[in-house]
């Protein structure tokens, strides 16, 4: 379990009340574009016809849909947003914050819930329409090509690959048998790292021809044909001395 964090309860102690406001996506996107100071708009709380009314008015500069600064003549995000307030009925909610430096602290209790609604007018409807259109566009589009693709032929064998392979073979040459002791040393050091090896991997490591390598392996190791480590080679019991994960020694016999 991770380190237990002591929760800073100062927020609730002071009876900080907070509002939980649900804000539409486009509005939050606009808010993200706000300047450094972070001012996004104004809230007015008034009493109209006896009922409390809260409205939010978005700053002028943030109404443009494009990047800030552009004066887009096209659709603009509505500015007026009345808030619909609810009381917190069925749920007791609190807001807690988590920070990398300060740990967890309880910021306050939620006293009101609100939903930020735009004033529904033509502008808004157009905006939503465009939004929905965009979301229905498929992400992958099929295009028609003017000219047929001629670069990819059906190869019998992959020419490039083959050429490369041949070149590699030529440059490396055949695998030469090294001294037996040298090979043994290589093998033992390899088996220090892992217990089970495939013959192909051993060939890769030691760069010895397969028959020679098998010969040596038959002397010092066994072949697992069944079980979990299928078709792998491992050292014989007398040659290996695996202890814990950290320590690994091997006994070599001449």
């Amino acid at each position, binding site marked *: 379990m991770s380190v237990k964090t002591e929760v800073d309860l100062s927020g609730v102690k002071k009876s900080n009340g907070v509002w939980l406001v649900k804000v539409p996506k486009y509005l939050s996107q606009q808010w993200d574009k706000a300047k450094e100071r972070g001012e996004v708009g104004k809230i007015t709380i008034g009493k109209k016809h006896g009922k409390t009314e809260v409205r939010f008015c978005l700053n002028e500069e943030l109404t443009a849909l494009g990047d800030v600064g552009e004066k887009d003549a096209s659709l603009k995000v509505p500015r007026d947003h009345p808030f619909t307030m609810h009381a917190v009925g069925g749920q007791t909610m609190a807001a807690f914050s988590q920070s990398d430096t300060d740990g967890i602290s309880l910021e306050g209790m939620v006293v009101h819930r609100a939903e930020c609604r735009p004033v529904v007018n033509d502008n808004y409807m157009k905006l939503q329409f465009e939004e929905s259109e965009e979301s229905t566009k498929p992400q992958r589009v099929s295009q028609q090509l003017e000219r047929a693709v001629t670069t990819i032929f059906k190869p019998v064998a992959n020419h490039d690959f083959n050429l490369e392979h041949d070149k590699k073979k030529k440059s490396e040459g055949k695998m030469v048998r090294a001294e037996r002791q040298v090979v043994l040393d290589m093998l033992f050091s390899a088996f220090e790292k892992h217990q*089970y090896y495939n013959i192909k991997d051993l060939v890769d490591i030691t760069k010895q021809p397969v028959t020679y390598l098998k010969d040596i392996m038959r002397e010092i190791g066994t072949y697992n044909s069944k079980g979990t480590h299928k078709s792998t080679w491992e050292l014989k019991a007398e040659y290996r001395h*695996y202890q814990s994960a950290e320590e690994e020694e091997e006994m070599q016999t001449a």
Partner: protein
Amino acid sequence: MATRNHSPGGPMFTVDYINKRDNDVGYVYYPEAEKPTTMTSLGSSTSSGTEYTVRVPKNTSKKYNIMAFNSGDKVNCSAWTQARMERDMSARRIYGEEESQDGAAGSEFGKKQREEARRKKYGIVTREFKVEDQPWILKVNGKAGKRFKGQKKGGVTENASYYIFTQCPDGAFEAFPVHGWYNFTPLAKHRTLTAEEAEEEWGRRNKVVNHFSIMLQRRFREQERGPDDEDEGEKSGKKKKKGGGRGGDLRIHDLEEDLEMSSDDSDSSMGDDGESKAKAKKDKGKGKGKKKKKKGGEHEALEDSDDGDYEGLEVDYMSDESSSDEEPEKGQPSKAEEHPKGIDEASESEEESEEEKPNEEETKEEEEEEEGKKTPVQAEKKKKKDSSGESESSDDSDIEGETASALFMKKRTPPKRGGGRGSAGSSRTGSRPGTPSIDSAATSNTLRAAASKLEQGKRPTPGPGTDSPAAKRLKMEPSSQSPAPSGKSTPQPPSGKSTPSSSDVQLTEEAVRRYLIRKPMTTKDLLKKFQTKRTGLSSEQTVNVLAQILKRLNPERKNVNDKMHFYLTE
């Protein structure tokens, strides 16, 4: 504006009062409340409303989340004195399949890459263990306080964003986006039953009167298993003393006619429960006559199904350990059941008891000796006989098995099945003319029915001393008789289970001896002689059997051409 309000019949007043009626927009002035309480009492502002700027701070390192409780839990956060919160990482071991460490014994070269390649090939997508999505564990007011588990609610930030508006001292609002929503539910501190236990208890609900004892039992059980693990071990100990109720090893058994509550049943683990026994008995008395049967300890997970108790009487496969345990128990109900059936009771019960003993011995012996194919079949059939307890089932059971096994019991150096058959055959043929009229076999076609009938008839006649050989012969009789009428000349019964009898080369001690006398041979040579195709044994069996034969013969050894040769001198 003031209006005149005429109340009819009353004094006339001219009252100036503040009009609160809805359609009038009056100037209402309330004293300006302190700023921080604007949030709670929204009515405290001027008519056109007070304006507050809203800021969305950009650079907070803090991530805001919502902690939601159910109102029914009556959580009052301000009443908390202390709280601790941490992530619940218990899901990590399910998700993170951390294999053995690299470089340790048991690791393979390139295992990880291979595993990855394999996963890609099959398109297995494993979900990562994200710490962010793990539930929270909230502990309030220290150890004795409440505990809550907060699970993340999904889909909160998908379509709409939530913001937390707090009011700053300067009157402006600050809005912080909500990153996650966690629903906190209280965790039960009292003990609960697991799903299996709950199902068990559900099955017993009609029979259990004292529901309070259920949890006591559970605690008791836990205490038995690991008192050091439980922090409430002491509590449970005390509770146990108070009135332990039924022990964990009492089970409800439905064979009511067979079982009686015996007072000496509960002498196992429940030490000091003289009074608990009494209490339990009282409970039992109260109940609808529910009976309990003690099973010694918890060695097996036994089902408590009501219907299944009769099923245990005829069991195909039973392991050795359980058979010894189950037998007395099953023997009882089976015996009790047989009484109403009453078919050839005396002879059969005798038969059974006799056969049980040799069968058990044989089982052990057979398991020591390598019998090859026969053994599992024989063992199975024998055990079936044990537990079935009905000789009617001998219709199905193989008399063959018994006969052969009876044979083997006597002959300690058995020339294995094939050889056994050979010698049995010879003995059979020898004794065949000696058998008097056994014609009842002719009445039934099946080998086994005949065998059983004959056994029944012949049972009383052979004396105890000659029982086995005679019985053996008799048992051979029916097996040989029925093929005889059917026109088979070979003494070998057409069981079809064992080896083809027409092989020339049998892996017998005699054969090996012959070879070794003739000339020294290596083990390889010997194996070549007894080819698997001809003896019908598998290579492993051949090896084992040969090894045993060689042990017995104890031949002399000679090293020729660097190879170990065996030979015998007569």
